[in-house]
């Protein structure tokens, strides 16, 4: 049955993301992953060449799932500021509910080789693309080309710090600050601080 094979592959991919987030990439073995997935070594090697191959597949699938969830939650949101807030909230909630996924997505990926870091980079770029709509907010203003790199850089730096410190569950408390970081290059400190205050009141 094709669906059965597919679901076993999925279970391995999900297990890989969890185990790497828990133990770190280097310390993770194929034995850990098949134990977590409740599958056999034979099944693992039917689908993947090795740990690295499996990790890359698991990372790609995780990015798709996270991105699909964000787009589904906030595509209808208008204006742009609401869309950014909703998107950021969705991401932060996913990370807070699944700290292991968050660590794999943001921290451990760096240990999995240059091709894994490339996948991380591509994922960050997709978020940047999604943000680009913000430019239409201020058509007359001359903002630098890389403004979305700055916004995403500021936000991911803050998230990275929290995850390395083991505070994934507390990320939602940082939501007002993250929103400020995301909006400030576009709107300036005054308007970004207003949005930050509103987010703090809503929390």
């Amino acid at each position, binding site marked *: 049955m094709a669906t059965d094979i597919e679901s076993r592959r999925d279970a391995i991919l999900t297990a890989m993301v969890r185990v790497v987030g828990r133990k770190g990439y280097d310390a993770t073995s194929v034995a850990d992953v098949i134990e977590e997935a409740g599958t056999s070594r034979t099944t693992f090697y039917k689908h993947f060449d090795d740990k690295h191959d499996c990790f890359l597949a698991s990372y790609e699938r995780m990015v798709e799932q996270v991105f699909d969830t964000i787009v589904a939650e906030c595509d209808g949101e208008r204006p742009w500021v609401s869309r950014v807030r909703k998107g950021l909230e969705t991401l932060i909630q996913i990370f807070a509910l699944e700290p292991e996924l968050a660590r794999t997505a943001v921290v451990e990926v760096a240990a999995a080789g240059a091709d894994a870091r490339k996948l991380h980079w591509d994922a960050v770029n997709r978020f940047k693309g999604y943000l680009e709509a913000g430019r239409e907010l201020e058509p007359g203003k001359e903002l630098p080309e890389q403004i979305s790199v700055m*916004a995403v850089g500021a936000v991911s730096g803050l998230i990275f710090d929290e995850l390395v410190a083991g505070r994934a569950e507390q990320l939602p408390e940082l939501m007002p600050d993250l929103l400020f970081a995301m909006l400030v290059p576009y709107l300036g400190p005054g308007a970004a601080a207003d949005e930050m205050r509103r987010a703090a009141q809503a929390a």
Partner: protein
Amino acid sequence: MVARSQRERALDAAVDVVAEKGYAATTVADLTKEAGISRTTFYEMFPDKEACFLAAYDAAADVLARRVAAAFETEAVWPARARAGLEALLGSLADEPAIARLALVDFGAAGPAAQRRYRAALLRMTPLFDEGRDFAPEGRRLPPNTSRMAIGAVVGLIADEIAAGRTEQLPGLLPEILFATLSPYLGPEAATRGVSEER
């Protein structure tokens, strides 16, 4: 004196070999060969490859931080102080692409300890940004994390360039870097004006 130069050679070797082979593929044998030191000497100085790499990372971060701080002090008032510091940072990274790549892109390969070193090194740049608070019209409403955000924005831009293989062109990125530094404090319009005045 001799012990120190052996240590320095080991640290330089860690930067060069890791830049060439990647962290995972680097062995202690590679490091001793590149540094021209014996295995015994290596293990007298470091318990393992990771310790040597982390020491090399700290040493590189120290050199960068000292250059940035020295440049920062050549000016009296922010944002000129920030511009001088950032110019020194971009120039230093462009001069040493292997260190730049290791410091800001490939550091994660060495695991969680290296990641903590990376964040600690970045946060040493905080003073460059924090003085902006005194010049911000909305200074008291800015979140306490503003300098961390600005650092994230600046490092995001720099890492993008390094990952794209444009390390040597980093000094040309100064206007964007300056915008990222000024805009959280002054707003986009004033930041754009500040960037053109600094040119």
